[in-house]
């Protein structure tokens, strides 16, 4: 009886916890968010995998789980249409057109300055909609070369100029982000009323 006070052995186990919830990698958490959005968009709840029914569910889910934009806050927060890494999905939620472009919460003419994983920072050359400030950082899964997808987005290159549209913190692929072109830029400006 050398130990008059017996500690709870579970206290020792608690102290040996190898993973602290507060120390999880932020990039990992961001990837989970993107994946979550994709799940909600591509797979209707209560249905068998493989059937597709997109709509308000996707938009509402995206609204609730949107990531924070570092600079320049887009207004609405729907979902990211481009596949997140590793899933192999290649669908576009909406086909690109000037009409569907008008559904995006932000659109701008920007030049890539920093690419960090799926996170891309643009300097804003001209804001058409939903962007304030001189720079904006967005998630662009499938467009940074970190994963191979067939989502129809360009591989963004630092220093290159693009027309970028999307929702929440996500740049959409499928034509909603494309290399800058004067004629297309004029169309965007006209369609978005800037």
């Amino acid at each position: 009886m050398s130990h008059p006070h017996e500690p709870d052995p579970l206290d020792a186990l608690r102290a040996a916890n190898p993973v602290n919830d507060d120390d999880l990698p932020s990039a990992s958490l961001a990837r989970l968010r993107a994946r979550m959005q994709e799940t909600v968009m591509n797979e209707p709840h209560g249905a068998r995998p493989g059937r597709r029914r997109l709509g308000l569910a996707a938009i509402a889910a995206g609204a609730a789980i949107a990531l924070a934009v570092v600079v320049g806050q887009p207004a609405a927060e729907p979902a990211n249409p481009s596949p997140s890494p590793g899933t192999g999905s290649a669908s576009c939620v909406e086909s690109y057109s000037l009409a569907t472009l008008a559904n995006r919460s932000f659109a701008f003419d920007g030049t890539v300055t920093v690419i960090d994983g799926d996170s891309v920072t643009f300097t804003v050359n001209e804001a058409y909609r939903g962007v304030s400030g001189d720079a904006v950082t967005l998630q662009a899964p499938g467009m940074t070369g970190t994963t191979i997808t067939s989502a129809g987005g360009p591989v963004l290159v630092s220093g290159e100029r693009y027309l970028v549209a999307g929702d929440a913190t996500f740049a959409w692929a499928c034509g909603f982000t494309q290399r800058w072109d004067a004629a297309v830029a004029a169309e965007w400006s006209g369609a978005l009323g800037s």
Partner: protein
Amino acid sequence: MGQPDNRASQQLAAAFEAHHRRLLAYALRRTNALSDAEDVVGETFAVAWRRVALMPPAGQALPWLLAIARRVAANRRRSGRRFLGLLDRLQRVSSEPAPVVPTSPASDALARLPSTDRELLTLLAWDGLTQAEAGAVLGISANAVAIRLLRARKRFAAELDAIAKGSDDDRTPAQAKGMVPGRSARDRSS
């Protein structure tokens, strides 16, 4: 159909916001790589989305989600063993190193326990669940949890003692005879 879909997606989103960190921590403790842990959590929410009608309110959804994650992780471990066997044969290594799990007497003692004991104890000590919540994850009653916990706690304490005594043997004969752990021979002589 827009309104029900909207509610369902908001419900799932609320559960995600409330619990994705704890789910990732849970998965990371049970897998060998961060990418595997992300896959477990991603698949967990995919399953949750398919069964969202059965999901408890977000604030109470953690045990339900952990139960899914537990099954997903188990399935991945089974397929992972096959895959790693193939990798071994090909003499390839993963590009993402396994997380370094710091060793301690407690973690060593835990490793010596049966898997059922380990699972229950870590749900309580690491995942912060109540006994009732742990029972929900494991699919057993609260009464069964209490009985299993009593035994697991005893076994864990016994292993801790055994390790402490083994460590003492490694240090000095005096400590091995039951002296206060951690005191050096010079301390005791003073």
